[in-house]
């Protein structure tokens, strides 16, 4: 069916006359909605008299496809006419919030949790709305509800008479909603489980989709910002402010207080405030940028102006070699066994750097500070974090901070931290007008909230049959939870440990009788945060590389080895077998083709979901190098609400993870980041992208997470294929370029 291009997209429009880009659904059900012909049926569903159905979207669209998949759930239970559906971002109600681990619910997208957590909630909302529409129709006809059914935006009775949802909306809106309406049997789904075309695609193909950077509000000025290169630095002097203020269009030079990266709030304005950034506010962004380039500002290094990668790596090495870590897990007698078999211990040591999110749309926000009332527009991944940071920074109530969420040009976790929003509010407050603050790519790269570094030292002993008997895993690095979420740390008498450092390592179902997992935190002044797949990209690289090493030394096939160790876990075997079969693993590869296999069960934060993934990478020789040419990826994601977006996550997730495996590295000197733009922090290009064979396995389980789950296995799978092709072991990421040199003539 041809997609309608006349569909309105509420998150679109290059120039906006109104003050709000997106108008939230009314805060309470009894308040009038925007037009008197719009009728709010539930928190999520507004039906207009003309039959237009507006579905609320609480989860920011960051490219993951929630803009389509979540409305699908509502529309299916509702039996709406999908062609009459419009999506509108909503905020301001408890219904739109989800709980991450043991915290109070927030409005935020992240942790691959949106579909898993909202599935039942949205089904219930859709079903409850359908029920009141039926009751409204039954009342109109004076018949029993059992004589009514719904289809495609109509209630139809046993005599074949029809009433449209548009005709029924006003009456339905007055009826009380059932808390537990009957849900459809899955056999009756007509949207859920189908590869429905993405609703936001047309707008993203003609330039009409509005991202944060595109926001335009009346009276708006534009700002460019530069921050002290050292994370602990501050402004020492601004020498030519007078000259800058005379430049065309320039309105103000504003010093911005340093941000606490744990929550994105700025330090209080008192005598101790450290001002570490300065922005130039001008009529046009290009004027602000030109002026900023000419600004003569000096920064110092501050308390950790000597931070460098040498120091960071030395601390990591020391942590890996330290006598003790904090025990995350112990079973059996690992220390004793390793000691008894000291002569045959197999060891690997790994080191991974900090990396940057590098969303394609650099961080930016538009803010209006007006007499203590704050309104912001932009690519915000967590509405709640944004409100809280602004409330703390400007002493205003969080729930009065109006946040308008646009499309996000990528985030991967970056835009949860609202530092760039708080900075925009400061700029607006200083000039008394709305300000759009845009970071340059250099600023975005150098003031990211990085994925922490990670290292591991693993020691293992094999049993007489060649399978692992005992493993001691020591994982070290800058602890994300200790830096940003101390309430998520696990506590033991020895100290605290950070689960994200060992995600995918300590909680796998591989058979292993004796296991010790320890962590050592190496705290650093580097701002860090969650980045797509969090610690699992490192921890699964460590773990799967160890398994590879053990199988290699035992001279057992890599697939058979994993199969044996995972034999008690049918869902693990399911994906492993599917990937191996599709890749033709058991058939010898052609000459100059080398394969690698890896497995991971991605366990959602707090155990919210389990997504099983297995990948087979194929390297092929191209001239004198080995190139990643094909990746087979089998996933069991539970019910795939939209197999189209699930496959996209497989394709894109693998490409994203290949950037991490092959290219991403942030280094530090003089207290701050060395890299700045895509020439020294580069991304995978199209000629490096392999063919992807996505296999989505059918499942009876409800929807599990997809956003982050396929990333972790790619690096160890590539490393294993390289081991097969060149004999070389890889113990760092990014993999050195010369690792891909073909060995055979």
């Amino acid at each position, binding site marked *: 069916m041809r997609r309608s291009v006349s569909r309105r997209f509420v998150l679109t429009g290059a120039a906006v006359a109104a003050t709000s880009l997106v108008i939230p659904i009314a805060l309470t059900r009894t308040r009038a909605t925007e037009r008197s012909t719009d009728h709010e049926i539930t928190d999520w569903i507004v039906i207009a008299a003309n039959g237009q159905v507006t579905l609320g979207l609480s989860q920011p669209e960051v490219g993951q496809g929630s803009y389509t998949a979540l409305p699908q759930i509502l529309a299916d239970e509702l039996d709406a006419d999908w062609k009459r559906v419009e999506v509108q971002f909503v905020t301001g109600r408890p219904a739109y919030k989800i709980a991450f681990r043991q915290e109070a619910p927030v409005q935020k997208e992240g942790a691959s949790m949106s579909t898993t957590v909202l599935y039942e909630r949205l089904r219930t909302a859709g079903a409850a709305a359908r029920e009141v529409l039926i009751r409204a129709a039954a009342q109109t006809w004076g018949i029993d509800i059992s004589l009514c059914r719904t289809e495609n935006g109509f209630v139809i009775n046993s005599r074949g008479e029809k009433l449209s949802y548009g005709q029924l909306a006003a009456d339905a809106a007055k009826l009380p909603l059932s808390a537990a309406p009957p849900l459809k049997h899955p056999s009756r789904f007509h949207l859920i489980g189908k590869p429905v075309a993405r609703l936001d695609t047309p707008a993203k193909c003609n330039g009409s989709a509005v991202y944060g950077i595109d926001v335009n509000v009346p009276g708006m000025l534009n700002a460019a910002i530069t921050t002290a290169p050292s994370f602990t630095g501050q402004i020492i002097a601004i020498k030519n402010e007078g000259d800058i203020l005379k430049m065309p269009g320039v309105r103000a030079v504003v010093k911005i207080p340093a941000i606490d990266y744990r929550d994105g709030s700025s330090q209080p304005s008192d005598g101790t405030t450290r001002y570490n950034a300065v922005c130039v506010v001008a009529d046009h962004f290009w004027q602000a940028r030109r002026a900023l380039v000419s600004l003569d500002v000096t920064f110092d290094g501050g308390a950790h102006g000597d931070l460098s990668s040498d120091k960071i790596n030395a601390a990591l090495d020391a942590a890996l070699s330290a006598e003790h870590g904090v025990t995350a897990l112990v079973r059996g007698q690992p220390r004793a066994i390793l000691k008894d078999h000291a002569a045959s211990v197999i060891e690997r040591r790994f080191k991974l750097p900090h990396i940057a999110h590098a*969303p394609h749309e650099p961080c930016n926000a538009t803010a209006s500070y007006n007499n203590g009332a704050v309104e912001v527009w932009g690519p915000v991944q967590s509405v709640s974090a944004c409100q809280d940071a602004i409330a703390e920074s400007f002493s205003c109530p969080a729930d009065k901070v109006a946040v308008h969420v646009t499309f996000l040009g990528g985030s991967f976790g970056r835009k949860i931290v609202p530092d760039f929003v708080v900075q925009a509010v400061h700029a607006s407050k200083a000039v008394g007008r709305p300000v759009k603050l845009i970071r*340059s790519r250099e600023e975005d790269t150098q003031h990211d909230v990085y994925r922490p570094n990670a290292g591991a030292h693993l020691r293992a002993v094999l049993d007489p049959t060649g399978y692992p008997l005992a493993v001691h895993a020591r994982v070290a690095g800058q602890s994300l939870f200790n830096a940003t979420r101390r309430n998520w740390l696990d506590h033991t008498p020895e100290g605290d440990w950070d689960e994200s450092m060992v995600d995918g390592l300590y909680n796998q179902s591989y058979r292993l009788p004796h296991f010790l997992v320890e962590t050592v935190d190496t705290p650093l002044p580097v701002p860090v945060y969650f980045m797509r797949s969090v610690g699992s990209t490192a921890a699964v690289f460590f773990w799967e590389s160890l398994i590879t090493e053990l199988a290699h030394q035992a001279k057992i096939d890599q697939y058979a080895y994993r199969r044996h160790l995972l034999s008690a876990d049918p869902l693990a075997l399911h994906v492993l077998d599917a990937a191996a079969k599709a890749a033709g693993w058991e058939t010898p590869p052609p000459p100059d083709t080398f394969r690698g296999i890896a497995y991971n069960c991605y366990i959602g934060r707090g155990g919210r979901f389990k997504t099983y993934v297995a990948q087979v990478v194929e390297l092929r020789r191209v001239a004198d190098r080995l190139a990643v040419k094909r990746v087979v990826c089998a996933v069991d994601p539970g019910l795939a609400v939209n197999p189209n977006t699930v496959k996209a996550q497989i394709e894109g997730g693998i490409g994203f993870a290949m950037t991490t495996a092959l290219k991403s590295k942030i280094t530090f000197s003089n207290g701050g980041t060395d890299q700045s*733009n895509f020439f020294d922090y580069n991304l995978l290009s199209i000629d490096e992208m392999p063919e992807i064979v996505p296999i989505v396995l059918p499942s009876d389980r409800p929807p599990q997470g997809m956003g982050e789950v396929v990333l972790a296995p790619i690096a160890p799978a590539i490393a294993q294929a390289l081991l097969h092709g060149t004999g070389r072991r890889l113990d760092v990421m990014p993999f050195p370029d010369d690792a891909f040199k073909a060995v055979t003539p």
Partner: protein
Amino acid sequence: MPVTFSVNGKPAEFDGPDDVPLLWVVREQLGLTGSKFGCGVGLCGACTMHIDGAPTRTCVMPIGDLQGRKVTTIEGLSPDLGHPVQKAWIELDVPQCGYCQSGMIMAAASLLSRHPHPTDRDIDQTMTNLCRCATYTRIRAAIHRAAEVAAGTIGSGAPSGTGVP
């Protein structure tokens, strides 16, 4: 001395410093925000427009060089999403976050105008635009599909596999 040029068939004028990048003139002065800012140094291609038909990274294109020239932005590629590249992009649901896609589509349109049936090698060598979401798999497939659409072979863009009732 103002620079006069045209954008999407309409006359445009800019009176300001010669070195202001075309990207910002188009985004701010003309309010056409479809072309994006990604790097500012001509590396990512999010800012790609056509200047006299040639694909150009406009974040490093000084407005002073635009005198008398014709600019086409993503907004002007077609009035109705009807360009074969747009049709193919929609049919295959290429975009994820979508931020790179305006530039990507402009680059692909330009590639097809010069190579109506591009090989994978042509694509590899010409499509140097970056995509952080790594939608490259579908970009490649959509370029091939767009070539078919443009040639009038195998239908004219009815979406497949949408599952929409």
